């Protein structure tokens, strides 16, 4: 029995651990989405976290806890700097500005070969991430976000998402709250990047490009952004899907795109939508009486 379990772990541990990485990524974009911002820089923040941590581990020999901290702080700083001019943009303009930032990050990584290994990336990163590191990270992230949602911060995000002008006139500092969501999202993406880099042995700039950004968005929208369950569920399904549909591997990006379109058209609140569940449940109750 134990043997079967350990065999299962050897074969599937990478998949199980990438469940954690993707959950953190989906939660990172959920933060900005819950504040009404379509910011597409999460893949870049993940990359900044991954590269910062890999370089600190390999070239400077920092201990793992310090590396994790730095892997979160570096993208937070980047978010602060690019957030100041871009967060006043709304809707698709913010998406474009943050996508452009992502490209800049990718090109900087490719062109600083001495530090980042350029297009070939960095190989031989020690695999320090244990399964419980990942679990702890996801649980901590969920706890912090859950507490936030039940406080004035969560209400402020929600108010800003619904009507920015009205939120400001309720005494909410709209700019500061948007910045908070953006920076915390960057921290989560950086954490995902750091843990993932110390799991997969190597990183390269391709992983943190446009495709990854769209995938992160798709996971969160697919799951639904009305609650914390949605992004976690969405990321789990999107992690497991390629394994189940491995014959379709070549069409993975296409499948992602089709899923995003279908969800937006038919389930705009994602698959985890408490309001819809209540509606269904209510209808059943009504039919019974």
């Amino acid at each position, binding site marked *: 029995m134990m043997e079967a379990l350990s065999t299962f772990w050897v074969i599937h541990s990478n998949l199980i651990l990438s469940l954690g990485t993707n959950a953190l990524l989906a939660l990172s974009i959920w933060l900005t989405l819950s504040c009404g911002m379509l910011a597409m820089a999460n893949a870049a923040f993940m990359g900044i976290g991954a590269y910062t941590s890999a370089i600190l581990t390999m070239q400077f020999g920092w201990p793992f806890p310090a590396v994790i901290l730095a892997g979160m702080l570096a993208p937070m700083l980047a978010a602060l700097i690019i957030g100041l001019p871009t967060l006043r943009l709304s809707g698709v303009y913010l998406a474009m500005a943050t996508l452009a930032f992502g490209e800049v990050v990718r090109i900087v990584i490719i062109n600083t070969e001495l530090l980042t290994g350029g297009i070939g990336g960095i190989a031989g990163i020690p695999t320090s991430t244990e399964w419980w590191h990942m679990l702890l990270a996801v649980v901590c992230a969920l706890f912090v976000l859950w507490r936030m949602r039940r406080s*004035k911060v969560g209400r402020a995000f*929600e108010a800003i998402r619904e009507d920015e002008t*009205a939120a400001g006139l*309720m*005494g*909410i500092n709209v700019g500061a709250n948007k910045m908070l969501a953006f920076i915390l999202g960057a921290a989560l993406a950086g954490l995902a990047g750091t843990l993932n880099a110390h799991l997969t042995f190597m990183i390269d700039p391709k992983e943190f490009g446009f495709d990854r950004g769209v995938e992160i968005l798709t996971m969160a929208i697919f799951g639904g952004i009305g609650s914390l369950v949605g992004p976690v569920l969405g990321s789990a399904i999107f992690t497991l899907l390629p394994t189940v549909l491995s014959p379709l591997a070549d069409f993975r990006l296409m499948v992602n795109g089709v899923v995003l379109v279908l969800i937006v058209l038919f389930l705009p609140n994602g698959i985890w939508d408490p309001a819809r569940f209540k509606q269904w449940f209510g209808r059943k109750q009504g039919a019974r009486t």
Partner: protein
Amino acid sequence: MNALPMLQLQNVSRHFGGLKVLEDVNIEVPEGGVFGLIGPNGAGKTTVFNLTTGLLPTSGGTIRFQGRDIAGMKPHQITQAGIARTFQNIRIFKEMSLIENVIVGMHAKLRYGAVGLLAATARFRSEERRARERAHELLSWVRLDHKAHDVADNLSYGEQRKLELARALATEPKLLLLDEPVAGMNSGEKTELMHEIRNISARGYTIFMIEHDMRFVMGLCEHIAVLNFGRIIAQGGPDEIRNDPQVIEAYLGREDESEVAQ
């Protein structure tokens, strides 16, 4: 008499390109009571509110709230200083429940930090409980407490206006700006709202309202200012305004025009 007026606009103007929406507007809203701003459509009334709440910068002149110049202050700072408003086209948070709408208005008054929030400290819990109780109280002022946990989008038009009023009160304002509070209401709802506004005024809030409905304004306001084409053309009590030839002209056209026609 108080030395300082609640709100004072001095030679305020606002231009959009070459269009002079407001020109040398002087308004003094005294502390206490209900002050009305009336005028034909497009006279610039809502612009006065947008300038006062910091949504738009002025092109000239000064706006003082309790003697303090509010130029350059952001909307949330002006709200925190004590001015709240409602909108002509209702802007409640439709996907939230009524009570959440009202609690959002208390955002700046809830005193707890990141640690209190994460650890759900006694301070956090007592602040949240206080907010909830106060929100129920404010909802009962506008007789909506029985629907506290409904989704705001399901309210009727008149109820949404009243929710917006309760939400504005939640910011603990000294001055409450109401932008056409009875627009689109039937006469029963209007009478009810008139009572509620009187009650709110009696609780010590200063009210400054824009309204088209003359009966409503004349019935509620002690002071009235009339705005036409971006200028104040008359100020005074309801009787003065009713008999002011310029006001009659602005609303009904000039009398001698018809004489000439005859």
